[in-house]
């Protein structure tokens, strides 16, 4: 496992926003815009933290989270979600999510959240 962050988010502008802010803080990160791409990158790059959107064009974030946790239980999954319904949060918890951040989020909060879970 390395110190990188994987962003799986289909809204390109948001993915770029997160990437830009993490990189300015010298955190290595990469972006995937679909579930499939995200899973491939996760397996190849072995990131320690995954920032995950709930709604993806080919799958939902919960399914992806389960797969990631089955694959590598140590990796941290943080959901970035615009869905504020209780059900969404429950689903995320069931899928084994470590944390959530709600859209629209404060960039400072997002960065602190990522730093909280960084191990190296």
């Amino acid at each position: 496992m390395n110190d990188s962050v994987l962003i799986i988010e289909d809204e390109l502008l948001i993915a770029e926003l997160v990437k830009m802010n993490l990189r300015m803080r010298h955190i290595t990160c990469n972006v995937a815009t679909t579930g499939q791409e995200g899973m491939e990158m996760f397996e190849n790059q072995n990131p320690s933290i995954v920032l995950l959107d709930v709604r993806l064009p080919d799958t939902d974030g919960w399914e992806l989270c389960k797969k990631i946790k089955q694959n590598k239980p140590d990796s941290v999954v943080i959901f970035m979600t615009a869905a504020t319904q209780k059900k969404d949060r429950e689903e995320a918890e069931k899928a084994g999510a470590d944390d959530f951040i709600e859209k629209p989020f404060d960039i400072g909060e997002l960065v602190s959240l990522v730093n909280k879970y960084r191990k190296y």
Partner: protein
Amino acid sequence: MIDEFSTGSTLPATILIIDDQPKNLAVIGDYLMKCGFTILVSQTGTGGLRRARDLKPDLILLDILMPDMDGFETCRRLKADESTKNIPVIFMTALTSVEDKVKGFELGGVDYITKPIQYEEVLARVKTHLQIVNQKKKLRLQASVLRKINIHLKKEIETRKAAERELQSLNEELEYRIKSRTEELSKTAEKLRVANIKLEKANKELLKIDTIKTEFVALASHELRTPLTSILGYAQTLLASYSQMDNSMRADVLSTIVSESKRLSALIGNLLDISKIENRNFNIVIEPFDVGEVIERVINALNLPSGFPLTVHNMVPDKHRVVGNQEKTGQVIRNLLDNALRYVKNEGQITIEIKETDEFIRVGISDTGPGIRPEEQEKIFEKFYRIRDEKNRSFGSGLGLSIASNIIEAQGGRIWVESKYGKGSTFYFTLPKEISYE
């Protein structure tokens, strides 16, 4: 003894004796008087008749052989007179021939006494006949009582029958009322049942609408958060890392903020449109207009670079116009063209074709974009539905086609898509033609 012979009154029975022999009259009269009877006498048939008429004796002892009018004639006359015919007559005679006796009975006599007279026999026969009279009177009385009772009973029966009829008609009335009441009740029950079903249906409908609204709010808030996340995030980034950025980067960030703000604003506009449509607050003015002109105006407003491959084939004669709302139809055309432009990017081309059928004018907007999978062709008209195609992502609100479909249907038209995946799509809509009276 007197009581026994009384004829209903308290007076003793009266006996008229008619005999031409004074001696006979005296002897029988004395004897019977001693026995307690009132005695009337007459020595002639004529006198006897008069006495009988005037005094109405209870019984007559009548001698047959008399000089002026014999007993038979006297009896005949007594029986012929209404007032005396019921008085029993006992003949007294020395005649012993059977003919005489028979004649006496034939004339209405009830009995006869043979002379020389035996007193006890006279008394016995008198008593017997008075008893018979008495019995007859009693019988008559009883009969009259019975008649009265009968009349009374008949009346009673009539009354009862009337009461019964009354009762029966009341009963029928009651049954009728019960029947009609029951019918009424069952009708009411049926009405209630129907009303209940309607209510349940309305309730379900309301619950459904409520669910749809809740889902709509959730989806809308989700959709609004996406551009807002970009706006807030990029603005914060610019603020916090201003010095780390060069000018072109700052300009990029600012233009992203601007374009995402516009997107947010358009989204809010669309949401308001949808909300108006869903609240049936969507009154549009319908009037005839030229759809070709509207298409031209929309294309001009797009500010396409010169030489962009967009062709319009208008196959409808000028005079044929549609009936609808010009502004809203313009919005639909704008939406469809925006979609087409988004998918063809700079590589493909767009063709607009206007055609007419019997009752409608049909507009088709074709693009050479990626096309839509068959299973998605109907869903794209649903609210917030976006094509799940990872290569060709749309960045619209997911509301444009839903709004277009509502607008077209509100004008009496139809909207649909024909598409081959990988080859491009054609969006069609129809609007009713203006009826021309040439």
